[in-house]
């Protein structure tokens, strides 16, 4: 039988400990979040063989886990309207490289690389390197070649380099019909915005995750506005044989009713060559 005094002491110690645990839990979580980001980025610096050996027989699961951590890391930063630094983007590229060493056929890290490294960070070389790896690991998949072609056309503005990728992609099983002749059509448009819209619509179709979908839809909306404005600028040029000095001129000419808002919080401006540009550069505002 425990004495009443011992019983009271035990209960007090229990509640005191529980209180300490409860009050520290939040801080502990913050601490682990900081160190888990450190350990995640460290994966990128480890040699490929060491990452594979450490994962034992759970290569697939380890790849899933690291990718989920990468989503969380990047998602938290973007959610807090805080862009990653150049070094952090490079680290993300290295992590995605290790993830695809663990499971080279895993499509999501390549898709993530295209969404983030190409569109958000402007690291086209890194994204293309990963996509080339994807094309080698999945020789029957049209998507890596399509993305490579798109990157050459849209980001590098090199239609000649994009064409062979797009032609190869069109020959792959299951390639959508629109890929055939897309290279030619891309060159015909002579404008990257429509290509970007077509590409983003394809990306959204491939995404099941709501958060990522919203992120892409926001970008698509911004590009659609740019496209509408560019069409309006063309109409202005047709009517007045010159480009408008600013977008207000389009309203005065009665071509558009009002100036649309940039979902990223920037301001749309018309350049001397008639292209429409936004001061947000389609990046999340800090």
């Amino acid at each position, binding site marked *: 039988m425990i004495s009443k005094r011992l019983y009271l002491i035990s209960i007090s110690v229990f509640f005191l400990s529980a209180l300490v645990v409860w009050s520290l839990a939040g801080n502990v979580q913050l601490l682990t979040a900081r160190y888990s980001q450190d350990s995640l980025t460290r994966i990128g610096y480890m*040699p490929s*063989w*060491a990452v*594979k*050996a450490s994962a*034992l*027989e*759970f*290569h*697939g*699961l380890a*790849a*899933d886990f690291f*990718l*989920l951590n990468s*989503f969380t890391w990047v998602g938290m930063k973007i959610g807090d309207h805080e862009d990653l630094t150049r070094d952090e983007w490079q680290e993300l590229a290295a992590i995605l490289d290790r993830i695809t060493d663990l*499971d080279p*056929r*895993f*499509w*999501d890290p390549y*898709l*993530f690389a295209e969404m983030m490294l190409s569109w958000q960070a402007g690291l086209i070389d890194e994204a293309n390197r990963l996509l080339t790896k994807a094309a080698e690991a999945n020789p029957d998949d049209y998507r890596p070649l399509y993305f490579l072609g798109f990157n050459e056309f849209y980001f590098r503005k090199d239609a000649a380099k994009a064409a062979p990728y797009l032609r190869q992609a069109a020959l792959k099983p299951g390639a959508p019909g629109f890929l055939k002749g897309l290279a030619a059509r891309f060159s015909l448009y002579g404008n990257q915005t429509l290509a970007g819209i077509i590409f983003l619509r394809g990306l959204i179709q*491939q*995404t*099941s*995750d709501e958060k*990522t979908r919203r992120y892409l839809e926001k970008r698509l909306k911004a590009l659609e506005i740019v496209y509408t404005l560019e069409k309006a600028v063309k109409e202005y040029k047709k009517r007045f044989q010159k480009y408008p000095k600013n977008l207000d001129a389009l309203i005065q000419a009665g071509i558009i009713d009002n100036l649309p808002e940039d979902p990223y919080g920037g301001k749309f401006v018309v350049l001397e060559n008639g292209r429409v540009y936004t001061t947000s550069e389609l990046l999340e505002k800090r």
Partner: protein
Amino acid sequence: MNKVLAIALITLKEGLKQRIFYALGIIAVVLLFSGVMVAGFFMRDISKILVDIALSLTAFGGLLVPVFIAVNMLAGDIDRRTIFTIMAHPVERWQYVAGKFLGLSWLTLLVVLFLAGAGLVAVWAGYHLYGPVYFSKFNIFAYLIAVFLICIGLNVLLALSLFWCSISTSSFLALMLTLASYFIGHTLDDIVAFVNTNAPKNSTEELIREVINTVQYLFPNLSAFDAKLAAAHGIVMPAGEILMLTLYGVAYLSALLVLSALIYSRRDIQ
């Protein structure tokens, strides 16, 4: 043969008495709920994620038998002297080894089938929750082949734990040796690839390379039985390769069982 089967049956019952199916039930529920939910965080490869989780938990749950239950039971038989109750009957030592292996092998099979079945339920739930478009790559044959190869790999590990129990005097040592064999078996491939791609810079590195190249023939290449990634991507392994791996596994475990039986028969159990 009847004596072997009788020991096998007793071993199976003894294994089931450890209430591992309670633990496995928890693992299965975790698999069903968290796996299906976590898969939704990914963009496209939902079926791959679910198969990864299902097969990894199957392999992990299966590991409980050769690593913990087998070592605990075999070394415990000697530690706790329960082996004498069996040896008191007219049973040969090799029959004891074969019976123990068979019983534990059945237990492994039950565990693997239970978890792989729960994994299939998770895949089925994911299919209905997220839609068939994300499951176009799922292939039931690839999944079953991976489960079959997990069983072969676990049986090889089981034979290894039996072997370590036959030569060691404590259950802790046998457990450590079994764990070490598991780690070596799964990392050897990557380490061999690494040492052979870099030219040795000095005599020490040359020696390490020679040792690793020799060790790879002594320890089983357990990573060869890992078809989880192929299954996750719906790739069906050719029949010839499955046959070769089965032959390799069966040959390796037979050699170990013979060796263990020989050591047990010469061992002075007091």
